[in-house]
């Protein structure tokens, strides 16, 4: 089976989603020992690539932006893909516009600009950071978690493989999304506790070695879909979070939960609201 990237994000090409790219990258890079100026270079280049999609890929509108982050064989690689108008699309440098691509070139060890099959552009960046630790690889899950869920258009899709890598990534992502949902810092802290619990308890219940999450954000409400879980495991995941004397932590941190049983797997749905 194909080896999936350590982190994959499926995002609508909106300015606010660039921060999700940066925070995922930061969490993963720090787990691999990349910090300081090296991390700053990586974040800057990835930000340029993502901004380029947001601003230029879908003139007058928006569309999907796919980001893949992987650390293997001593290299951190970031791939930013869209299905928009394709390259070239930036004004030439002589006009003084579009300095994003030269910035990417200056900060990366290697960069390739490609056409996405079926239309669109793909920027593949590779960073050679001395002393970077390889991260373990996961196996791709065959289930498309997002396919059969409603509200997918605005939702943020996250895949993490192997699931242990969710520990440095997921609390960051959910903090950003909770801030976007106008949660108070109080409830943002709760969602971090929830992320920790999902990471700790979720890995053993997955039906593969890839953790997938779909997150929808509305004012003061966040909806989470987690899976694909082995059939029958979603309910157990909730009860596993039980601490004697405290009750099921996951269920208590969320305002509502639901188990969606599919043919081949379960999906756990959690909803959090801000309380003030």
């Amino acid at each position, binding site marked *: 089976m194909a080896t999936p990237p350590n982190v994959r994000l499926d995002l609508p090409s909106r300015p606010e989603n660039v921060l999700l790219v940066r925070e995922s990258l930061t969490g993963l890079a720090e787990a691999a020992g990349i910090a*300081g100026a090296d991390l*700053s270079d990586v974040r800057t280049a990835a930000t340029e690539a*993502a901004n380029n999609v947001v601003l230029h890929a879908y003139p007058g509108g928006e569309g999907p932006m796919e980001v893949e982050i992987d650390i293997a064989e001593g290299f951190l690689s970031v791939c930013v893909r869209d299905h928009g108008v394709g390259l070239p699309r930036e004004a030439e440098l002589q006009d003084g516009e579009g300095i994003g691509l030269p910035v990417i070139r200056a900060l990366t060890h290697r960069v390739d600009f490609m056409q996405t099959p079926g239309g669109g552009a793909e920027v593949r960046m590779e960073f050679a950071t001395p002393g970077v630790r390889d991260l373990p690889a996961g196996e791709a899950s065959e289930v498309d978690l997002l396919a059969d869920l409603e509200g997918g258009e605005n939702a943020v899709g996250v895949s993490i493989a192997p699931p242990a890598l969710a520990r440095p990534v997921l609390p960051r992502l959910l903090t950003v999304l909770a801030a976007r949902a106008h*949660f108070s810092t*109080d409830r943002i802290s709760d969602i971090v506790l929830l992320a*920790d619990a999902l990471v700790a308890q979720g890995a053993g219940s997955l039906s593969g070695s890839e953790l997938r999450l779909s997150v929808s954000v509305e004012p003061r409400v966040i909806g989470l879909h987690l899976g694909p879980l082995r059939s029958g495991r979603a309910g157990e995941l909730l009860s596993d979070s039980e601490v004697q004397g405290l009750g099921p932590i996951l269920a208590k941190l969320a305002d509502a939960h639901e188990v969606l049983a599919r043919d081949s797997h379960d999906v756990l749905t959690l909803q959090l609201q801000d309380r003030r």
Partner: protein
Amino acid sequence: MNASPAATTQPRVLPRSDEDPRELFARWQQHGDRAAREALVQRFMPLARSLARRYDRSSEPYEDLMQVASLGLLKALDRFDAERGPSFASFAIPTILGEMRRYFRDSGWSLHVPRGDKERALKVRDAQETFTNEKGHAPTVSQLAQYLELEPESVIDGLLAIQAYESLSLDAPRPGGEDDAITYGDTVGDEDHRYELIELDSTVVAVLDRLPAREREILRMRFVEELTQTQIAQRVGVSQMQVSRLLRRSLDQLRAMTQDSTPG
């Protein structure tokens, strides 16, 4: 300040100039014409500014970034080969970025928590407490951003730093405290008592009982009484951030203990 996604929307990085830059480069590089150099600086300064603004390191003061970027621009003006090279911008961008990266390395950015990040995190923490005390409820990120005159993104970075670096809250004096000598470290007790606790016979003692009384009480208030973290903070007399930190650590410890006591 912060590299925001909108940074690239600046409509024109380079203003129009009547003079041909090739002409200006020739006058400066071949004849040492300082007026020509000045005109080139004027013309390309927006490029340096744009790079300084987008360089993703908001903890460094923008003025400093701008100074380093300008230095890079001057170097690029001296070295650019107007006869052969492509556009000046494509030559100048790597030169300016190179200058900025060297500066960052020299100024100790390899430290795990840059000083600027830490200061900002402390500011966010203090503002969070002040706001909560004044309004009786915890602020949102945009309220904190408004209060601190920071980008929301910087506030989020601050919150994440507070989550990530536990020592942050332990060695900093409590804000607004009557007695400045009291630190969080004093108020939450010894950090590492868990290790001796874990050595207790895990099958005999319920995991919760192996936590210190204070942590146990905070967990009980959050999950049994179902109080908010802010309410708990008010009862216990610490900040909400501190409650959050204690909850996170306690739950981690509980999970570790449960795993230890579960065979396989």
